[in-house]
């Protein structure tokens, strides 16, 4: 592999800068997520050509264009399915999937659940702003009950999804929550998520300053409490994690809820990949095997 060519010390924040600058609204939470991702990649010193950033559609899904890695800006809700195929075809690549709450929990909800139970080795960052932004402000699957939007002008009457509980139930092996306003903390979670061998889910409060006037920086700041500050909290305890995931209100936990390392990731569990990534394989079926396929039919 050509991965050794890049001297580790070379990678700087400037190397991670994409071809264009973000066109997010000034003050958007997504700036913080982008910066933390770039910082994490610099700190981990992963050669940029071995990283693929994959997104769906939405404000936050524009992120791959703003970071200098290989990128795929796919369809609304489909990023995890695309990422699964890509990872299985070349499991030497580091895969980071980014998107929003509508993309991931609404239209992509089915893929979200199944990618978690498969334990595909990738980091999935959801920039959760509890609103549809790019379509100019409609209710999202994480909008609170009562929230008034253009699509529910008299207030939302549907209970929001709890992404952390859902991820725990679906079998994700690394589950964390970050806040765009907590840069250092978020960077560490991203680093941990990338290094975790399996599916890492990182739900990030990334406030929409244009359309969500309920869940603002000011609203989150006094509420978020880092799980790491609670020395008694054990992130290998699934039941404790489930209990913590239900906390919402005056206190909202952020940090690593849960991690387990005893479940092999999908590519590690598949013997077909024992000989290395598919992309490097010979296209031809060995003649003796081809013959055996035909003999079975005679």
């Amino acid at each position: 592999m050509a991965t050794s060519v890049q001297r580790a010390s070379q990678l700087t924040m400037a190397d991670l800068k994409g071809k264009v600058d973000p066109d997010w609204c000034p003050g958007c939470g997504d700036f913080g997520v982008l910066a933390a991702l770039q910082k994490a990649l610099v700190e981990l010193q992963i050669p940029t050509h071995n990283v693929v950033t994959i997104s769906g559609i939405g404000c936050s899904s524009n992120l791959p264009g703003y970071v200098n890695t290989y990128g795929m800006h796919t369809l609304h809700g489909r990023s995890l399915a695309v990422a699964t195929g890509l990872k299985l075809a070349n499991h030497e690549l580091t895969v980071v999937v980014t998107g929003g709450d509508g993309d991931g929990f609404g239209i992509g909800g089915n893929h979200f659940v199944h990618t978690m139970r498969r334990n595909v080795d990738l980091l999935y960052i959801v920039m959760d702003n509890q609103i549809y932004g790019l379509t100019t402000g409609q209710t999202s699957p994480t909008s609170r009950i009562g929230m008034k939007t253009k699509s529910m002008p008299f207030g939302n009457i549907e209970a929001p999804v709890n992404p952390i509980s859902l991820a725990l139930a679906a079998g994700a092996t690394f589950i964390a929550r970050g806040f765009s306003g907590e840069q250092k903390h978020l960077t560490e979670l991203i680093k941990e998520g990338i290094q975790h061998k399996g599916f890492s889910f990182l739900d990030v409060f990334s406030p929409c300053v244009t359309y969500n006037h309920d869940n603002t920086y000011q609203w989150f700041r006094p509420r978020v409490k880092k799980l790491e500050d609670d020395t008694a909290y054990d992130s290998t305890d699934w039941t404790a994690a489930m209990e913590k995931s239900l906390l919402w209100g005056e206190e909202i936990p952020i940090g690593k809820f849960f991690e387990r390392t005893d479940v092999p990731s999908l590519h590690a569990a598949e013997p077909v990949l024992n000989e290395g990534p598919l992309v490097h394989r010979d296209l031809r079926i060995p003649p003796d095997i081809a013959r055996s396929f035909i003999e079975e039919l005679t």
Partner: protein
Amino acid sequence: MKQTFAVSIGGAAGQGVATPGDIFAKIFSRRGLNLNAYNAYQSIIRGGHTFLTIRTGAEKVSNMGDRIDLLIPLNQDTMNRHLNLLRAGASCIYNADTIKPGPAADGVQLCPLPVSELADITRNKVAQNTLAIGAGLHMMGIGFPALEEVLKEQFKKKGDAVITENVSVARAGYDYAAGHFAAFPNPLPKTENRYAILSGNTAMAMGGAAAGVKFYCAYPMSPSTGVLHWMAANARKAGIMVRQVEDEIGVINMTIGAAHAGVRAMCATSGGGFALMSEGLGMSAMMETPVVVINCQRAGPSTGVPTKTEQGDLWQMLGAAFGDYPRVIAAPLDIGDCFKLIPEIFNIADRFQCPGLVLCDLLLSEGRLSVHPKELDFSPAIDRGELITAANGNGDSSAAPTNGDYKRYKFTESGVSPRAIPGVPGHIHTAATDEHQEDGVLISDEFTNPTKRRAMMEKRMRKVTGIEAAVPRPTLAGPRGADVTLIGWGSTKGVIEEACEILNEQGISANQLQIRWLAPLHGDAILEILKDSRHTIIVENNYSGQFARYLRSETSFVPNGNIRKYDGEPFMPHHIVESVKEQLAGKTKLSVPTHEIMV
């Protein structure tokens, strides 16, 4: 007339119709005979009615034919449904203890087997089936050792006692027939040929393996599931990653993800699943990431008739995904072609970085045909087009880690831009479903630019010219200037071919234009062929004449008549022959033959 022999076995699902079918197929195949097997069945796991017809002969057999020579009803329902299909010279073997025949046509031999006298039915639940196989083979003039050999293989896993039991029951049936039933006048011939017997689904899966497919995924859907089954069973031997996915939306997106990483990736489904894949196909086109998608058509719309065949998805394929983009659509002509087509369409998809769509149908997918092993070529030409990988030298190890000036969507005369896969240094870019400029940067939002949009649209669409040149032109089979030209596409090739033979024997000269590559369609070549035709008829397995409408939209050509069938069952040769005759006599311009076999 072709010298062929057809045996039909019918019963309830779960009653063991498949096993006698497999045994007959093996015996015919080992005599060096060709065969075609078609199973008419219902969407039910136990019960209902299923009716398998195996037609065999020394010559090529391409369809189920018009005539049943031997009927083996395993229950009364089958007898009631199908005895009336038998004509003079045919025979019907049945369990005299449980089944009563109705009125049969003159010259039909009824062959009652006293099953409880010939076998211990308390020990052997399928004794009637085994007795009937034995009796039938005697009447076909096949020696008993051929059956003994196959029974030994069939029951190998169940141990010697079961083998001995079944061989002795088969022998009893064989001997009983010798003493009680008249044999068929012509014993089944024997040749030195050896064929492989396979379904279209197996053929497409194997064709994928031969093409170098390394990633296959699917959601189970009849009648495409056989592709998944072959892939899953042979994944480890063939080094193919095979996944069962949560839905067809996931399937197409996973396939594109794998293809984007640089492997050849394929998936198969039926019409309903294909509908879910539609948006994904647009992504393949926009990102210029090639994939091959197989649609095994079944009778629609909606859930439709899941176990029956149709050619009703042509317009869905033509219109799949919104917007204009280059696509390739091909319909395999027979089961051997199901294999051969896959490497061919992969080469075109790879060279032109666009989706390749295979329009198969239940008739080929689940039918079985004898194919000469030479036709199953595991070393086909492989052309991956302009692909930049770390291995092929374009991934310069001294390259800077940043983008350099690589342009993934570079404007070229052919419209094809060299494609770098993730992991290659110096070629970093983002592939997007949004419209983009040459370097991949979006021009959908802040940088919207009508000039750039037009240029990128034209770049992609320029590929169509190259695809047209890469796709072979259709050719006419049979003499030019015949009385009638039959035009078909895909799976109807064999049955139209046989209808032409019959028409020619009856003094009506007929030729055939069978279309394999549907998009791009060589309209000019088709018009050139048809300009000498005296009477043109389009034959297709759907209601509205989907191909007729497509041909008209592309060429303004209107045929003299149409033969269509949309009852879920395939054409039989006589359906076409009789329709041609009524149309030549000026009775109608649209014939819709009635299917006589009721399943």
